[in-house]
């Protein structure tokens, strides 16, 4: 009788463990950039210079990493409640920061030239489209505001 009890406990545990792990992995939360340590901290101009002048292997090392930037707002565009696009002032490159979900909803309206500090995940560098006058673009996703300083 005791053996039967232990058998069932062991069997259920063996089933519950992978099931639990599977459920946890299926519902694994997205990264929290506010809690992750950034691999780069600096101004949007410094970061844009660094990436713009780097080769592909340097850019690849930064890919998918958390970056913390401070800079001035060049453009702010809210489309709906849960999506915001923010362009930071930078040198020779546009730094485009995307906010989604809760961080977008909580983001206050930002004004041009306003100083901000934010973190995001570096997702790409694009030279621009040939034949069109477009600056190269750096994209950061899942951004979150760290500090919001007014112009005053």
């Amino acid at each position, binding site marked *: 009788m005791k053996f039967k009890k232990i058998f069932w406990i062991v069997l259920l545990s063996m089933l519950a463990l992978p099931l639990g792990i599977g459920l946890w*992995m*299926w*519902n*694994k*939360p*997205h*990264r929290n950039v506010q809690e992750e340590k950034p691999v780069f901290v600096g101004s949007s101009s410094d970061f844009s210079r660094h990436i713009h002048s780097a080769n592909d292997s340097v850019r*690849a090392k930064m*890919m*998918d990493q958390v970056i913390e930037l401070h800079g001035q707002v060049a453009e702010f*565009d809210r*489309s709906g409640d849960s*999506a915001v*696009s923010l*362009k930071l002032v930078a040198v020779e490159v*546009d730094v*485009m920061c*995307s906010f*989604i979900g809760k961080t977008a909803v909580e983001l206050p309206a930002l004004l041009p030239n306003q100083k901000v500090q934010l973190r995001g995940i570096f*997702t*790409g560098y*694009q030279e*621009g*489209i*040939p*034949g*069109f*006058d*477009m600056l190269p*673009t750096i*994209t950061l*996703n*899942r951004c979150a505001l760290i500090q919001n300083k007014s112009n005053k």
Partner: protein
Amino acid sequence: MAQSFNQKRSMKNRIATLLTALIFTAGMAQKFTTKTGQVSFFSHAALEDISAVNKQALSAVDLAKSELAFVVQIRGFEFEKKLMQDHFNENYMHSDKFPRATFNGRIQKAAPLTWPGSHQVELQGKLEIHGVSKEIRVPATLTVKGEEAQLSLKFSIKLADYGIKNDKVKNISETIEITVKTSMKKA
């Protein structure tokens, strides 16, 4: 006195030529661009519907030349579930090797288009995904009003055509639907 008159006439001719050139150039400058175009895709499969959106697509259109282009960073696609996003980048799209998808093509139209206006057009060009480039023709709606041009289109692709392999669990359908919506400003 005659020399002064000739000099004045010559100056007037030069100014007239310059003004004509400027007006002509302004009329031809019909380029629109954006860095916040939206590209999304949808896949229906037995296990679960999968959808993702990228709101940082570069898009550009030149109405004078009837040319347009898109560039989308693969890592910029956002999924509801983190696990799906990881699988998408690591197992399907191999985004470390193929970091972007691009489209370069022309606007095909039956008759000359007039602007401002809204027209049903056909886009023809090369779509490159996962390192594979294919010629496609898709219908689209192009609207130009003032300083803004809006483009929207929806089309389907077969993953196998671009070397994107389905996994053993068949968690994604063989055909996915792609939607593009972009609002561009005059460059």
